[in-house]
């Protein structure tokens, strides 16, 4: 199998850099929209105050950590 393209991409071709930026951008957008929507649902449909804050901390915290990690790895790759 010819994996030259994979090697080029992983070695930092410019197309790949744009692709990575696009992926991270889309992921950020998806995370923010989901987070905002879930916040709305948890607030509006009556999830209790403490449970809501636990959800925000867990979902937001780990989600943000993964997002920051993906940014870090993206900068490492491009």
């Amino acid at each position: 199998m010819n994996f030259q393209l994979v090697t080029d991409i992983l070695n930092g071709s410019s197309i790949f850099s744009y692709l990575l930026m696009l992926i991270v951008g889309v992921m950020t957008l998806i995370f923010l929209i989901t987070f905002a929507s879930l916040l709305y649902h948890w607030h509006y449909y009556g999830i209790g105050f403490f449970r809501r804050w636990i959800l925000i901390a867990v979902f937001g915290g780990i989600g943000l950590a993964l997002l920051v990690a993906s940014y870090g790895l993206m900068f490492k790759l491009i």
Partner: protein
Amino acid sequence: MIVFEDNEYVIHTARKHWFVFALRFIVLVIAALIPLVVTPFFTLITSVPFETLMSGFSFFYVAYLLLMWIWGFMMWTDYYLDITVVTNKRIIDMDQKGLFSRQTSTMRYEAIQDVTTDIQGVLNTILNYGNLYIQTAATTKEFILDDIADPNLAKEIILRELARVLEKVE
């Protein structure tokens, strides 16, 4: 958010059995672990150096994990907010269909003609969860509550309230 009528109070709430959510969660965990299992085999069939492959893999895996994480929370929210509330005046069924889609149906006791439970399968019987069908007059739709915990208890409560309401009408 439910706006209750005057003198209306909640008698019973029912949501999907936790096992239904647990099953979906297990699928999610397996899906999150698949790349970790598959990638080492990928290194065997390609000439790409392991370190190069891993640097690319870790980026895509973190992005993939983030998607799984978002999906998991959407699943939990869907499970938690899908709820059926039985009050002394009506039955309110709220169905979270997605992040931006939500359906709320209300049924008054006067319209109920028949209540049926359906528990099928070994796990359903052991864990006591199944479907509850509430049949109304032909012109209105049937209420179907899928995989709710203890459907027989919900049925009993609904029938008891139905009898009380009909008694009052007569």
